[in-house]
């Protein structure tokens, strides 16, 4: 009914894509339904291609090549995806790997030479060369959709292909599919520069951000350094049990159909290694959680386009910083049935989610969500039987604790989904449109200037474009930083008003204090008559 076409560009984008698709498959496999089908002369039970599956997948009858509507039996699942890379390696791995049945070769667009970690090469050279082919590819994916809702771009900003070609494609989408939202999941290079082996990554990132600010409807920024920290923590916590890593195993459509084949090629990603797997898995979880509420039933369904409407108060300020809780695969959250009462559980989920540990971007020294101004915030809860009143009371508490601007005191969007994710019985994801994004932008600006002052490597870029783009891009980013700083003050009267003065990063909520949560919501509010 409401489809999303995924566009994965570059090495990073395609690796994330792989994790994402295997996770999406497993999630639907865990929630699949069966029915009797009578055709081919016999009755048999088959897995149903459900409405919720149709968001990400197509069901194709390979003999007639026809699309099958939701409600039909699963024949051949195909991902609604465009796989794009200017190198061959990762893509051919995907096409040989356990997910190969999910894609046809017509969904792949590749070259052999790569973009040489050069944004301009990707944006101008490949963008010009492959633009038409790309639009044709998108058309082939968009046409079978009943009501295409958005494009999901997965890419990284540090390199050349994902960053350059990725943002070019975004621009093409904007020109050709106006009104269909463009979500970008953008992996930024580590802000300190540590562990970043691409010298030109500050250039590429700033130039790509310039495009993202203009052409995306929403960007979920993720920080590479933060991801690797998190994945280390997760794999330590997971012990030998293994986190989501082995989701990649198993024949894709077989898993959904319920007959698990023993094609146990774990860690088939070859050289990628466990760490990368885990990192990609975190991003994959973010994306599945983000779309859970539109795919599955829940008390408060949230569509992707609602997220944009609610969390983007000003068109350029569409950077939504994600957090996930719980982060490790086995925490006490997983065992809610063991006597944990729902309000305590929800409270602890909220506490974890709004602590700096859960953020998917690196926060600067002393910077945290509680002492930065928050323009708007989305909270998306997954899990069976989580009462809306518990969520509301926690949101009410946050509203008084965070520094919300005067014009957006109630700036919370809530989504509730009944179907839990793969790793946890209940989990929560938040997207914060907040000044904290500056703790990614500001160090990036510094790193950019370190290179740009010496005009280092600029000549590689000017082969493809005018050098003025550098000044334009950094100017745009600096403006954005200022806008984020001043956004809380907009409107007459001005002034950021929160309930409480910032409290530093100490934890404010005591999980063990139970029962009181309900009163928080009703107590403070003024009463209104029917």
């Amino acid at each position, binding site marked *: *009914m*409401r489809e999303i076409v995924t566009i994965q560009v570059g090495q990073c984008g395609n690796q994330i894509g792989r994790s994402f698709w295997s996770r999406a498959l497993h999630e639907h496999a865990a929630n699949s339904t069966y029915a009797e089908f009578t055709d081919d002369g016999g009755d048999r039970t088959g897995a149903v291609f459900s*409405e919720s599956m149709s968001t990400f997948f197509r069901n194709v009858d390979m003999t007639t090549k026809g699309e099958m509507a939701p409600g039909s039996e699963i024949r051949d699942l195909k991902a609604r995806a465009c796989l794009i890379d200017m190198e061959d390696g990762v893509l051919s791995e995907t096409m040989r790997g356990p997910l190969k049945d999910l894609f046809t070769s017509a969904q792949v667009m590749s070259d052999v030479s790569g973009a040489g970690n050069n944004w301009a090469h990707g944006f101008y050279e490949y963008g010009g060369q492959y633009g038409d082919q790309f639009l044709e590819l998108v058309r082939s994916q968009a046409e079978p959709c*009943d*009501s*295409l*809702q958005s494009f999901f771009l997965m890419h990284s900003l540090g390199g050349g292909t994902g960053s350059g070609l990725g943002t070019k494609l975004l621009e093409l989408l904007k020109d050709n599919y106006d009104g*269909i939202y463009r979500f970008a999941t953008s992996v930024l290079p580590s802000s300190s520069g540590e562990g970043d082996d691409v010298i030109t990554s500050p250039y590429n990132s700033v130039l790509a951000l310039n495009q993202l600010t203009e052409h995306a409807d929403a960007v979920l920024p993720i920080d590479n350094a933060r991801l690797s920290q998190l994945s280390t923590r997760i794999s330590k916590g997971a012990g030998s049990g293994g986190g989501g890593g082995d989701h990649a195993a198993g024949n894709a459509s077989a898993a959904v159909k319920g007959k698990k084949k023993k094609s146990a090629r774990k860690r088939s990603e070859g050289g990628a290694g466990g760490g990368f797997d885990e990192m990609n898995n975190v991003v994959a979880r973010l994306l599945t959680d983000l779309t859970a509420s539109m795919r599955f*039933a829940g*008390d*408060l*369904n949230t*569509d992707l*386009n*609602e997220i*944009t*409407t*609610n*969390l*983007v*108060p*000003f*068109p350029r300020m569409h950077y939504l910083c994600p957090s996930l809780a719980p982060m490790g695969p086995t925490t006490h959250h997983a065992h809610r049935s063991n006597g944990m009462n*729902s*309000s305590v559980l929800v409270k602890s989920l909220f506490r974890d989610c709004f602590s700096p540990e859960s953020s998917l971007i690196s926060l600067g020294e002393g910077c945290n969500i509680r002492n930065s101004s928050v323009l*708007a915030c989305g909270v998306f809860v997954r899990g069976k039987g989580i*009462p*809306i*009143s*518990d969520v*509301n009371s926690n*949101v*009410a508490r946050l*509203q008084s604790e965070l520094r919300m*601007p*005067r*014009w*957006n*005191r*109630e*700036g*919370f*969007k*809530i989504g509730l989904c009944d179907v839990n994710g793969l790793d946890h019985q209940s989990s929560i994801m938040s997207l914060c449109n907040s000044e904290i994004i500056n703790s990614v932008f500001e160090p990036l600006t510094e790193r950019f200037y370190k290179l740009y002052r010496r005009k280092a490597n600029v000549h590689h870029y000017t082969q493809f474009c005018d050098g003025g783009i550098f000044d334009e891009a950094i100017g745009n980013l600096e403006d954005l930083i200022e806008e984020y700083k001043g956004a809380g003050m*907009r*409107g*007459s*009267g001005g002034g950021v008003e929160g309930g409480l003065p910032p409290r530093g990063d100490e934890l404010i909520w005591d999980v063990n204090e139970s029962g009181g949560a*309900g009163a928080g*919501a*009703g107590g403070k*509010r003024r*009463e*209104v*008559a*029917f």
Partner: protein
Amino acid sequence: MPTLTIQVGQCGNQLGSSILSSLASPSVPSPSSLTPTSLSSSASIPVPPPPSQFFRQTQRGTNVARAVLVDTEPKVVERCLNPLDPSAANFRYSQNNSCIIGAGGAANNWARGYSSPESVLTSTMEKVQSELEKSDYTPAVHILHSCAGGTGSGLGCALTREYNDEHGSKALIFNTIITPFETGEVIVQDYNAALTLSSLNDFSDGVLCIENEVASRACKKLLKIEHPGVKDLNGLIGDSVASIIGDSYTDLQSFNNAANAMQMDDILRHMVPNSYYKMMSLRMVPMMPERSVEFTRDTWESGVVKRLKQMHRCGTSLECDINWRKEEDVGASISNFLVLRGDGGLPRMGDEKRTGILDLERRRRATDNSTAALPTPPPNSKTPPKAASAKKLPPTSDVWSVDCSSFSSPNTNYVDWNNDPFKVTRSHVNFKRYEKMGGLLTNSDSCLKLLERVDNAKVKFDARAYVHQYEAYGVGVDEFEAAFLNLDETRARYRNLSK
């Protein structure tokens, strides 16, 4: 005369099925009268059919709602059409009367829902037309939607406008809207609510506003549900709305002639005598947990009418917020409409102690044969209980003679330009499990508190936050300003009522 229900969006559809199921649910004899005899013979008590105003009966006797379901996604509508437990459903929707608009959703954006393409509106109005054609004349339509999201609010307003264009000259439009929690769900809800209210001011004939916040408080404080879910809220709101709009009669004579039931358009004409004042609010007593119902004995005067009066006086919608010290009406009302239901004609076991009923019943069921000694309750027929139980019941318990003069002028402060400000209608058919219940529909300045929330939208607007999203769908700065002006005028008018 039939009334068409149009339910729009997730909230509208959930609410609609809740209201209709309340309307269709058979009255339960007051619990205290559930003696073993009546339990065993309950099948023989004729159950009144659901109000024909809202349902039509098929030849096989199934009740089909006169309703059209509209949404941008199939999930909720699907649930309405095919309930999880079809045997428990007391009515059904016509499968043809649903309209799923696959325009990708309204994205919580009023402007996006309101500016739905012509084709969407046409196809919905076709469904409406085909339902209208099933009866000779439909003098009123009941449109249900939220005012927080985009589908319900925007599309709901667009359909109200369309209906007004096409049928406005011969039918009245009653909108029931749910106003959002002050916290959350949707950030741009204040914008959506302001645009909704202003648009309904132009195209609707009467707007009943129900606040989610209040319903939630009622669930917590009165129904003692610790963590009320969406279902609980809808159930409560469904009951309150149904208590007002369900069949009720001005007197016993008209009760005996069922064609005289109060109709939606009658209610509207009474409630909105002047099109400058369209905002209504709703109160209902009692609200209590199911388990307490059978332990409750109230008289009509002190238990129902007096409480409603005091709630009206204080401007509160919940019993628990009543301030009994207030002795004068603060604000002025334009009109009031009171509905009393109950005393289903079954004698009560007046002699027994309240707490003993269950025990007693259990014991009796065990020693089955002793039932012969009990008075046999007369069937729940259309004859009033008066004669049968006159001796047992105190005179005040008869719904047809309850004194409601506290709501008449001058006991209640009304504006001087309305000649007929108060109407009471009754029915002795019990409302669900309640032995006695009263609902009050008010058009008064108590809507001001709700209108004040528009200020939140203005603050947002001053910062021009989110305006770009609305501009993309044709609601720009000018349209916002016009809407604010419209609401400011409404507010000023209501504020001046009591001056």
